[in-house]
């Protein structure tokens, strides 16, 4: 899962707006760091849930004391990248769609008692019936579901949307799980690229209201994948033009698109074709939503802190600036929670071959100073941790991969001792940083200082916010440490180890998301084996694997887990943190009248 990040667009737009009016010192451009490279995390909101409840099938959902009416304003720094269901894969776009606009076979709802998300049916009558080895899933579509224009949602629409979700050329930024797991995902080019044909597509078959998904390999996490907007039903005729559909996707949920200026504003109005009785998760209390995007962070905070007029019914899914955290905390309108983001440093396994050097790096890294300089708050938006799988992943094991090392502790002496043992004092560490983000430049300074204190030679390599991820993904880049972050798409180890640890063919596919270029055939084999294990044994096996990889090979070390600190106006109710992804619980929102 990608972070909401069209920051580049924001920054550039901001700059050009300034240039156009000839001003040089009002407005601003440097405040977009709020979202770069993962944003922080809190335990307080509970763990990311792996709970499921197949019995919650029918609506309506009623929230005690909630009253209909009112307009909720949403403001954020980041623009909405694309709202085409097949391509919406940023935190903001995918949750706005799945929370309010597009229904799918399954969905997440917020459980106030556990402060966690629960997977329940949506358009399907249950959470699906797998065959023995999880290569075939059957779902039963509820009858009488309608699109916003009154046409029926047919089981065939899922064939089309799955075929579209395999189109990596038309939707390069969309999630690729259909390609990774489903039948013909590796051969079929996707509906649009294949020439608007379903020839060669065999992943989904339909019989009456029964939809059958076929996977190439066991896919026990199928119900999680089906929550994504990419797997929501789309009518083949209505969605024939992807560009037009991205401007106005057909709603099946409680809200449909009103006025929409891509990247800038989006209005959602009530969808009268949505039947509350069929929906066990969503509500339709507010009259409408007004999303105003590309607003500066400082401005967002001021507006929400003032809490006057419109601001009372406003919310943001951006983290509040660290300097305003206390004020928001005192106001009681702060919402904190964790989400499954792990930010880590990945020493290049091909270049830094001595495990002692990698371990020394983990001792030397200035965890807490790095949080402070980047504007993260320890325990809220940055949670120290050590295991690759963040809290809440099923089967997660608590252990210390580095002997005697506590999460978030920096010890230059211990690092130096290890370096001396490895005879590598003065070892050069080359890492990337974005020179156009002042906070990241400060963080770089802090890291350089800490590494040099521990006996490394630090060589920061300047890049830009726009280019950083491209350079980082280049296996031949002249750096030996990469600092990525990874958000799990569902709370299972299969969302962590295959993408982050399994080796890739560097010449053909590049690094993928294996930023350490980690390559141990034994571990690759273990990953393959675990995916073939009986489903109930898999979580524990992933936990074991985490410990094995981290203690024996130490290919990476965790710098923090993610958390969010969002704020809302005093008349907004039901704003909690969706801890699967770090966004507001859209389905619970209502306005005090």
């Amino acid at each position, binding site marked *: 899962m990608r972070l909401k990040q069209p920051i580049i667009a924001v920054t550039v737009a901001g700059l050009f707006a*300034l240039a156009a009016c*000839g001003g*040089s010192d009002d407005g601003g451009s440097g405040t977009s760091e709020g979202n770069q490279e993962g944003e922080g995390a809190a335990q307080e909101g509970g763990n990311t849930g792996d709970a499921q409840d197949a019995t919650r099938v029918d609506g309506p959902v009623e929230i005690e004391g909630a009253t209909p009416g009112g307009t909720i304003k949403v403001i954020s720094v980041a623009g909405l990248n694309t709202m085409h269901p097949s391509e919406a894969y940023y935190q903001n776009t995918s949750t706005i769609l799945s929370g309010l606009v597009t229904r799918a076979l399954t969905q997440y709802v917020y459980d106030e008692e556990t402060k966690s998300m629960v997977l329940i049916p949506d358009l399907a009558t249950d959470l699906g019936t797998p065959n023995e080895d999880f290569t075939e899933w059957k779902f039963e579509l509820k009858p009488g579901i309608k699109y916003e224009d009154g046409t029926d949602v047919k089981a065939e629409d899922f064939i089309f949307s799955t075929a579209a979700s395999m189109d990596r050329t038309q939707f390069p930024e969309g999630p690729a799980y259909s390609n990774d797991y489903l039948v013909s995902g590796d051969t079929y080019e996707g509906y649009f690229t294949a020439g608007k044909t379903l020839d060669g597509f065999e992943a989904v078959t339909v019989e009456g209201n029964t939809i059958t998904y076929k996977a190439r390999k066991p896919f026990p996490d199928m119900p999680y994948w089906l929550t994504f907007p990419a797997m929501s039903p789309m009518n083949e005729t209505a969605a024939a033009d992807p560009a037009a559909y991205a401007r106005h996707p057909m709603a099946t949920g409680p809200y449909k698109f009103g006025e929409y200026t891509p990247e800038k504003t989006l209005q959602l109005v009530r969808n009268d074709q949505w039947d509350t009785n069929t929906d066990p998760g969503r509500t339709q209390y507010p009259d409408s939503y007004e999303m105003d995007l590309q607003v500066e962070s400082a401005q967002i905070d001021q507006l929400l802190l003032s809490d006057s007029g419109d601001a009372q019914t406003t919310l943001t899914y951006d983290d509040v600036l*660290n*300097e305003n955290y206390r004020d928001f905390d005192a106001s009681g309108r702060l919402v904190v929670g964790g989400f499954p983001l792990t930010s880590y440093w990945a020493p290049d396994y091909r270049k830094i071959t001595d495990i002692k050097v990698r371990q020394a790096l983990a001792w030397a890294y200035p965890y807490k100073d790095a949080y*402070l300089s980047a504007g993260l708050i320890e325990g809220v938006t940055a949670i120290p941790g050590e295991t690759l799988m963040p809290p809440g992943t099923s089967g997660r094991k608590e252990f210390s991969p580095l002997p005697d090392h506590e999460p978030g502790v920096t010890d230059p002496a211990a690092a130096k001792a290890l370096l001396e043992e490895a005879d590598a004092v003065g070892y050069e560490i080359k890492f990337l940083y974005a020179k156009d983000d002042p906070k990241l*430049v400060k963080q770089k300074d802090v890291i350089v*200082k800490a590494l040099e204190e521990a006996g490394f030679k630090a060589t*920061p390599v300047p890049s830009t916010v726009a280019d950083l991820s491209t350079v980082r993904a280049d296996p031949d880049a002249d750096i030996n440490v990469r600092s990525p972050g990874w958000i799990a798409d569902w709370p299972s180890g299969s969302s962590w180890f295959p993408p982050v640890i399994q080796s890739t063919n560097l010449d053909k596919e590049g690094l993928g998301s294996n930023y350490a270029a980690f390559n141990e055939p034994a571990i690759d084999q273990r990953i393959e084996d675990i995916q073939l294990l009986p489903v109930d044994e898999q979580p524990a096996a992933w936990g074991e694997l985490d410990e094995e990889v981290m203690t024996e090979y130490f290919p990476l070390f965790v710098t923090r887990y993610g958390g969010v600190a969002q704020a809302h106006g005093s008349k907004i109710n039901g704003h909690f943190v969706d801890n699967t992804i770090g966004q507001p619980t859209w389905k619970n929102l209502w306005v005090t009248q």
Partner: protein
Amino acid sequence: MTSLNTEVMEEGFDPEPGKPEPVKELAGRSPTRIAMGRLAHDKVAVICGTILFVMVLMALLAPVISNAFGLYHKIGPGQAALTDLLEFDGLPRVGPPLHPFTWDHPLGIEPGTGLDNLSLLLYGLRTSLFIAVLATLISTIVGVTFGLVAGYATGAVDAVMSFVIDFLLSFPFILGALALAPIITTRFGANSSTLGRAEFLTLVGVLVLFGWMGLARLIRGQVFSLREREFVLAARVIGVPTRQILFKELLPNLVAPIVVAISLALPGFVAAEAGLSFLGIGLSEGTSLGKTINAADGYYDKYPLYLWVPVGTIMVLVIALNLLGDSVRDAFDPKTRR
């Protein structure tokens, strides 16, 4: 050199005609000396000059002051860990805004980095002044040369040169800077050791590129009017080389407009440098007032000292330079009376 008109007019406008002035002293004063004399009597000029002198002195002494008091302007060895300097949310553990004033850090410390604000201010001032002076110097040299040549050459050469001037004048500065700066720094600042220098030179380069045309135009106009004067014609007739005519005959007569242009360009460059750094296309390495203001942007009511001191410093600097520039112009222009 050969022009005495300023001096004559100066005598004619002597504010105290009754005062017996020895004639021989009058005969020995150059236009520049007269101007300096007038400046010394201008209260505004004296005050502004003093302020500038203090600022330049502080900027020059930035390392001395910082070292003497153990203040840090950049993150580096010796500085305490950030966790000791800052609270959990990045606000300082000592000094404003949460704690009382302390002499250890008279202007407080910077949230997020724990650096000393006084030290940041002094080093920022140093950067601003250095860049502004360098940019002024280069753009003056370029502008004067260009103007002299264009004005004296006439014909096709002048047409081409004027077109270049007009073209660059019509080019939007901010847009140009936005487009150029990243290209140049990416080309020459590929690693962090050369990045700082590349950014510095780019900044100066961009300021010069868009800063020399005004002066060039002014000089060209002046040269037009001087070109047909007797002393130039005479020099030409006796076969003085063109270069010598330009730099030995014409240039000395242009000192006044050049000095005026310099004194007005300096504050412009100071402000432009701060503006570009604020926009993030100035220096990413090192300290600059614009960068500090950018970082302090969100603190205007939470930690006013952090934001308003650098803003105030730039304001005072620019106003002082501007007023001094005005005074210099008045001093050099015998027709102005205040």
